[in-house]
C-alpha cells in the first residue's frame, strides 16, 4: 500500500512554518480543518509523532486503533489516524513518501540499552525529547501532561516492514530530501514531535537532520 499524492498547497500561504532541528521536540495545536505538513528537508529523517485531543488529552492517538480499524499496518494517503476512543483525529491527504510506520515506537535510553549495549544509556533519545517537550511546552504544561500520556507513536518517514512470517526490521528509509506528508485535522489536536536523534540504526541514515512543520487554514 502506497498512495503517492502531491499537495496543491503553497508554502507561501501557510499560517505557520517552523523548523524543528534534529533531536529537538516540537509542540503546537492544529485546529479542526487545518492542514498540517511535515517536510523531510534533507531526507531519511524519522519524525516521532503523537497527537492528543486539544479539549481532553486523555483522548490520544492510538496506534492499535489505527491499525485495527483499517486492518492495515502502514500509513499513507487516505489513512485515518484514530484516537483511543475510536474517533478520527486526522486524515492523511497528501504523501510523497508512500509509507510511514506506527509499530516501531520511540527510541529511549532504556530501549537503547536493550537493543544496542548497556553502555548506550546516555545517548539522546526520542522519549527523552518527549519528556523535555512535556516539561517545557505550554501546550503540555497547561494540560498537566506527563509520561503517563506517552504511548505508541507514529514514525513519519520511517520504514519498518513486517513479513507474512512475522519478521520485523528497521529498514533503510524510503524518504528523501523534500518529501512530505500532509494531514487534515478532524478535531482540534495537540501535536508532540521528537525529531529523532537515533544514531544506532538506519532510521535517520545515521545522520539526524531538521524537518519543517507547516500549517494551512481550512
Amino acid at each position, binding site marked *: 500500500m502506497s498512495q503517492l499524492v502531491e499537495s496543491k498547497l503553497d508554502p507561501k500561504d501557510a499560517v505557520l512554518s517552523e523548523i524543528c532541528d534534529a533531536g529537538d521536540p516540537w509542540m503546537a495545536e492544529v485546529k479542526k480543518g487545518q492542514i498540517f505538513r511535515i517536510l523531510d528537508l534533507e531526507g531519511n529523517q524519522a519524525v516521532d509523532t503523537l497527537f492528543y485531543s486539544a479539549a481532553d488529552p486523555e483522548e490520544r492517538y492510538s496506534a492499535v486503533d489505527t491499525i*485495527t480499524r483499517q486492518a492495515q499496518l502502514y500509513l499513507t494517503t487516505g489513512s485515518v489516524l484514530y484516537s483511543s476512543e475510536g474517533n478520527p483525529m486526522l486524515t492523511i491527504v497528501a504523501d510523497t513518501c508512500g*509509507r510511514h510506520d506506527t509499530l516501531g515506537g*520511540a527510541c529511549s535510553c532504556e530501549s537503547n540499552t536493550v537493543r544496542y549495549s*548497556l553502555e548506550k544509556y546516555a545517548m539522546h533519545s526520542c522519549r527523552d525529547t518527549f519528556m523535555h517537550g512535556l516539561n517545557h511546552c505550554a501546550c503540555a504544561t497547561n494540560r498537566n501532561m506527563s509520561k503517563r500520556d506517552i504511548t505508541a507513536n507514529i514514525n513519519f518517514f520511517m520504514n519498518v516492514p*513486517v513479513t507474512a512470517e512475522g519478521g520485523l526490521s528497521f529498514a533503510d528509509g524510503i524518504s528523501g530530501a523534500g518529501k512530505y506528508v500532509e494531514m487534515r485535522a478532524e478535531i482540534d489536536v495537540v501535536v508532540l514531535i521528537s525529531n529523532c536523534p537515533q544514531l544506532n540504526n538506519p532510521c535517520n541514515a545515521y545522520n539526524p537532520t531538521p524537518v519543517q512543520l507547516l500549517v494551512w487554514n481550512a
Partner: protein
Amino acid sequence: MHPYDSKNIIWEETIPGGTHWSCMIRRGTALRVTDLEGGANLSALFYNPEDKLERYNMPDTLKAQHTAFLTTGNACYSDMGRVMCSIINDTVGWHDTMCGLSDATIVEAQYGKATFQTHRNAMYRNGKDNVLIELAKYGMGKRDLTPSVNFFSKVMPDDAGNLRFVEGHSVTGNFVDVRFDMNVLLVLSAAPHPLDKKTNYQPAAVKLSAWHAGLADADDVCRNSSAQNSRGFVNTERYY
C-alpha cells in the same frame, strides 16, 4: 527455573469467555494459560505495581526482538527496558500484540447488543471496557491503557500491510506458559479480538494455572534467544 508440572500447581482460576480479571503476580511465579474451548483471545496488560507508570511497551518488545508476534523465547518489555514477563513454553506459535482491544462500538456492530438486563452474565462485553474496569480498581484509567498482548490470536500481514485475522488459530487445549520476571499487576480480558470475523458472540474460556517457577537461569530459553534479551534480563536483575 522449574518448568510446568501439574503436581506443583499452587492455584487455578478459570476466566469465562468475555469476562475480565486482574491480580498481582509475584516475580518468579509462572502461569500456564490454557485455551479451554478453542479460539480463545486473552488480552493482557502488564504494570509494575511499585511504579504503575512502568508498563508493557509493544513497540519496544517487537523491535528488540525483530518480531511482529510473540512465542516461546520472547520477552515482554516495559518502557523502562526491563523484561516484565517471558514466554517459556507455547503450543500456539503466534500471539498477537499489534491489534489492541475491541470496544463497545466494535462489539455491537459485529455481534449486536446483549445487556445485563436481557442476558444477565451472558451479556456481550468488550476488551476496552473490561480492562478499564479492572484498572479502576487500582486507581488507574484511560491514560494507563497501552497496546495489549492478545494471547491465542494471530493476525498476519501481506506484503502491502493488509491484515488478516486467522480463524481457528488456537484449538482446545492449547497453552502458553508465561513466567513473571518482575512483580506485575496483570490485567486480563477474555473478550473477542477486534479483528475476529465471527458473528456469534461465543468467546472461549481460559484457565490460569500458577506455579513457583523461579527466576531465569543462565541457560534460560528467553534470556538466550537474543543478545537483546540477555541485556533485558540484566536490566530486570539490576532493578531487584
